[in-house]
């Protein structure tokens, strides 16, 4: 559980994204694309889920990428090489079903780019034609460009402010591409509005679409039901039934609301932390 490396991938106008490599030979050995871990930074910490971005079996390590949003992710971002996590368990959730679908598009928004990278890599290795559409608010927040390019046949960037690539949304590009050509699978990870829009676009073209959800979890092993989502009218648990679901079947509005359950508490603990530092 020792942190081997920690580096800042992006740090601009209040958004900080860090990349952390952690020693965990057993998890590294079993981890597959699409899976995640649950970690705690200290005995008093929260359990938070994070996607396994890379698993290096030889080095016995896993790599996580974390955008500093809440209290725990901010603390995690401050941890340095040599520090140890209090708890680390995984690999959790189902792995992505990797096979040769034919032509696939991966849509990644913000820190979601970290999650499409392992899947893109595995799909590429399985012989798929891989198109990656990635989006960020601005150029400096675009992560893993180099890595993703090496596993993509086509690579398209969109930024909200037009500072890099196309100005606009990934979902607009998705729409354009699907108008021109037939694709066999779309895989989308990012902010909920982006995933919801992707699903709306692809359903018009009848393309199978998978989204990896970022529901709030506690134990992350199927014991609490905090991460429950409605998929096709049924209640499922993101942690053990997911984290990937048919994006056309997900009740996105419910997920948005459930992910805000602790907004007030989060503000409280972050403010308290700031006050303590003053």
């Amino acid at each position, binding site marked *: 559980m020792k942190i081997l490396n920690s580096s800042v991938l992006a740090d601009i106008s209040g958004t900080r994204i860090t990349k952390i490599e952690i020693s965990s030979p057993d998890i590294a050995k079993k981890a597959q694309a699409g899976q995640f871990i649950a970690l705690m930074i200290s005995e*008093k910490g929260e*359990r938070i889920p994070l996607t396994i971005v890379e698993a290096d079996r030889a080095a016995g390590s896993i790599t996580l990428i974390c955008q500093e949003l809440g209290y725990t992710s901010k603390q995690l971002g401050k941890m340095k090489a040599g520090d140890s996590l209090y708890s680390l*368990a995984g*690999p959790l959730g189902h792995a992505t079903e990797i096979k040769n679908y034919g032509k696939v598009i991966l849509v990644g928004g913000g820190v979601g780019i970290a999650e499409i990278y392992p899947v893109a890599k595995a799909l590429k290795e399985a012989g798929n034609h891989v198109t990656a559409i990635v989006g960020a608010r601005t150029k400096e927040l675009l992560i893993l460009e180099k890595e993703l390019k090496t596993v993509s046949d086509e690579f398209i960037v969109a930024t909200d402010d037009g500072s890099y690539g196309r100005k606009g949304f990934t979902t607009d590009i998705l729409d354009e591409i699907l108008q021109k050509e037939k694709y066999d699978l779309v895989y989308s990870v990012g902010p909920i509005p982006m995933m919801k829009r992707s699903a709306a676009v692809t359903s018009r073209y009848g393309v199978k679409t998978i989204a990896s959800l970022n529901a709030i979890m506690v134990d992350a092993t199927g*014991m*609490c039901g905090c991460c429950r989502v409605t998929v096709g009218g049924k*209640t499922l648990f993101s942690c053990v039934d997911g984290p990937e679901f048919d994006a056309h079947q997900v009740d996105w509005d419910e997920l948005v609301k459930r992910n805000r359950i602790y907004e007030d508490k989060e503000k409280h603990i972050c403010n308290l932390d700031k006050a303590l530092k003053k």
Partner: protein
Amino acid sequence: MQSGQGAKKVKKEPVKVREQDASGRSSSFDEVVLGYNEEEALSEAARCIQCKNPTCISGCPVNIDIKRFIYHITKKDYKSAYLAIREKNDFPSICGRVCPAEYQCRKACVFTKKGSPYATENAINIHFLERFIGDYGMKNNIAIPVQKNPELSKFKVAIVGSGPAGVCCAGELARRGIKVTVYEALHKPGGVLRYGIPPFRLPRDILDFELNILKKLGVEIVPNYIIGKVKGLEELLSEGFDAVFLGLGAGVPTFLGIKGENLCNIYSANEFLTRVNLMSAYKFPEYHTPVNIGKSIIVIGGGNTAMDAARAALRLQKMQGFKPDTSIVYRRTEVELPARRLEIQHAKEEGVKFRFLVQPEGFTGNDKGFVKKLKCLECKLGEPDSSGRRRPIAIPGSDFEMESDMAVIAIGLLANQVLTRVTPKLKTDKYSDVEVNKETMETSIGNVYAGGDIVGGEGTVIEAMGMAKKAAEAIIKRLLSK
């Protein structure tokens, strides 16, 4: 003393156990029941008539020699009392606190009225005596009896899950000299004892002490290790474990399947209690895991978990300066409540309200997706169902609403399936419970045993221990025949 007076003496009033005052205790998570002191324990023990053929022992799932340990108490020989319990039970301080004694040993006590559904008040307070002795052993650090068998020291057994079944099996095996490794998915051992039972019923220092005894016996406990994910069952066997015991537990929450159940601030009892107990959300923000607390809280269900959830919720309301307003909603009546009588009484004393004969129909919320109301129907009791309890029947047209800005669903748990889902050779029944040979607790895979709630569904701590002991005996027998 004449025999007539002797008979009168045994009819003496049971010794009441000291408790924290109801108003003060419900603002903290400190232990409610304070237990017997020596004088009280002696006085209660003296009520035991030392039956020639004691009935109480058969009421204990691990057959503690109750008569003998109580006899030792009357002689003030507490060490012998401790050892008598420890012969059968490694966790007297835990069991003395959480056993539903009124349905077990105390129900079988000769002083319980024949035909009563649970122990009557006059039954000897066996659990409080057990707790007194367990705590005595803990305070005085009485050495644990070990019966190491050198023939067994070459064997290794893996235990999956560190709940009551797992730790009990671990203790039984380690005491005979077997090398035991316990794998736990969460970051701390104890299973339901830690995530399910609140500290006001089972203080964490007691739990830690009794679990620590395992370490003293040489048991290795590996937390954060999810068998079925990070390692498969077959890998454990091929990596040199001679046998595996599965104490996976029943940790999967069930929901009502009614409208609006996924609104924010509707918790499964497992989520609410895990946040509060395992993650210490009652100490937020010192501990970082939050839990939301409503002004009008409804807990649905009538078991011990519902009582725990309601009592924890009410405490959090008080701690946050709200007027306590927590109600238990149950479809039947008080008589049918499956919870321990003591827990029901404690909940009432602390101010938990009970709404009987009410069937939840659906939740409604505000535009932000937070729950606001519970729609209900009134019920009446019909004929007994398969469980022997009278079936609740909803009365058409009796619809009404209850204020509820937070709700906890405590209607039961199902088997943990993380391991069984990925192990098709492990036979399970229609409830996803693991099937075992009832004599040996061996599963459909050779050298793999199971016990506790993963076999036969939700039971008590001590029932899980009973199964674990049976499995341990079978494991030892198998290893010795190798």
